[in-house]
């Protein structure tokens, strides 16, 4: 099986969240971008499948500026991925989901083969979860998200997996090719060994530009980034009876807080 994993460089978990001076976007100054969260699980899942389906290869792709993509790609190579491609996200902003998807799709279609494409369910920063489905559509491949427990049945040439939904868990099967948004790998992510880390720092990374489709895609632009204002203390509801308190609270939640129970 030829497996492709798409990994997004995201700010390290402990990063301080700050808006830029215009208040229009997250300020990346001094922030370290790493492989993390659901994307880290996707790399782990790809490597587990590689063990399960002997002879498989894992290719990892990341889109963005080299200072960010290279860290993520080297970390993935150190974990055991076989090869890597860095797609230079030429169209600002770099967090435009559909533009990113088109850039990834073009890079993936230029690979010799892609049977299974793994995405993390959503990125730790923007949490959009759009890129997997969009990339799959651009490639003409089916897409299933919220996947858990992904296995390959080589005898039947089918993937078998679960899908975690609001009501519970669905069971699925699919032939190849398939694109998957992974919620959870069947093991905790492994740690790269020191020799593998040293080797990965010298490994080659293929490079390509994001391409025309990404550049001409209609855009999603960050206009404002804000931390919530510090809380001032509760608005205490005045009431003469429990019924009045309940009615007032529900009304405030609907009309003022705009959280609709």
């Amino acid at each position: 099986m030829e497996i492709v994993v798409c990994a997004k460089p995201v700010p390290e978990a402990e990063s301080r969240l700050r808006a830029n001076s215009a208040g229009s976007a997250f300020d990346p100054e001094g922030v370290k971008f790493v492989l993390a969260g659901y994307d880290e699980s996707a790399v782990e899942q790809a490597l587990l499948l590689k063990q399960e389906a002997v002879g498989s290869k894992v290719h990892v792709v990341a889109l963005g500026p080299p200072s960010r993509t290279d860290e993520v790609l080297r970390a993935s190579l150190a974990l055991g991925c076989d090869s890597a491609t860095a797609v230079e996200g030429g169209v600002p902003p770099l967090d435009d989901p559909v533009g990113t998807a088109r850039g990834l799709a073009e890079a993936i279609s230029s690979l010799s083969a892609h049977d299974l494409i793994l995405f993390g369910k959503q990125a730790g920063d923007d949490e959009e979860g759009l890129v997997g489905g969009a990339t799959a559509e651009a490639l003409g491949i089916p897409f299933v998200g919220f996947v858990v427990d992904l296995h390959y049945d080589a005898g039947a040439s089918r993937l078998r997996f679960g899908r975690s939904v609001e009501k519970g868990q669905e069971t699925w099967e699919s032939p190849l090719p398939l694109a998957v948004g992974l919620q959870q790998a069947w093991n905790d992510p492994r740690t790269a060994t020191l020799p593998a880390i040293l080797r990965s720092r010298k490994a080659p990374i293929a490079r390509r530009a994001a391409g025309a489709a990404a550049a001409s895609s209609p855009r999603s632009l960050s206009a404002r980034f804000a931390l919530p204002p510090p809380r001032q203390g509760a608005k205490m509801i005045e009431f003469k009876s429990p019924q009045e308190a309940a009615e007032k609270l529900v009304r405030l939640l609907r009309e003022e807080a705009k959280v609709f129970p």
Partner: protein
Amino acid sequence: MSETVLVVGEPDGSALAEATLEAVGVARKLAGPDGAVVGFVGGSDGASRAAAFAGAGVGRVLLAGDPKFDRAPPATLARPAAAAAEAVGAAAIVLGGTTFGRDLAGSLAVAFGATAANGVIDVERIPEGWRVRRAVFGGRATEERHLEGGKVVVSVRPHAFPAATGPAVPLASEPAPAKEVPGALVAPARTAVAATAQGSGPSLADAAIVVSGGRGVRAPENFRLIDELAASLGAAVGASRAVTDAGWKPASMQVGQTGRTVSPQLYIAVGISGAIQHLIGMVSSRVIVAVNNDPTAPIFRVADYGIAADLFEIVPVLTAEIRRVRGK
């Protein structure tokens, strides 16, 4: 503003998911007083879902009635839904931001030639396109995005908008434009569904609403009050460390520094005093409500709304009021 907005319906049994009705409310606002909201349903049993649209005030519904969509991935509906939007002249497609909607949104954006945003908590039309607001970084910050170009796909965060309730209108359903969907896209098949082992509530990690009980509940059998309030809201149930340490609830339900961190739309803390260890687990919730006998309890410092009263008097009445308002 006068626009046509398409809403993609999510099946829930033979009805529409509540998230779809929330999407209808948003679509109505985007369409403007002179605009139109059109429904779209894929798969068999479209008639009852179309009826549900009409009951919520959406009379025109396009049906892509092919049974091959029933067990196929939600993303499979991307091309038919995009074709339906083109056919009715819709510039915007709105869906509920559930697992169904989120899976479909990305594919739909590419099929429709649009840009997209998932899980928005606010959306409005602007000259450049649309402006949306979303929670990011696990709820620790919010962003506003401008979605440019003439077309957009937006999924709305569950429980962030009111469900459209009508008034009902006559249904005028029609077949959606026939759109060829390659066999490869319908090849993945759902073979089974199993309901969550732990009751019917959502998991703490993903829930849009969480109701937590603390030491003020006094005894394990009283937790029933918390469970009923949660059920009335479709919420997940959490607990403070005092409760899990006492063995009233399993450790997996503990919200706090050494338990789980949650950032739902709405967090209701019942009988919880607000020790720092608990606050760390829930303080990034969008809206916090606290019910506690003690008006000086620290929880009221971080809550948005507070009711200083006996929870045994307030909670059952609140549960009943919520049920009444939701029509259950």
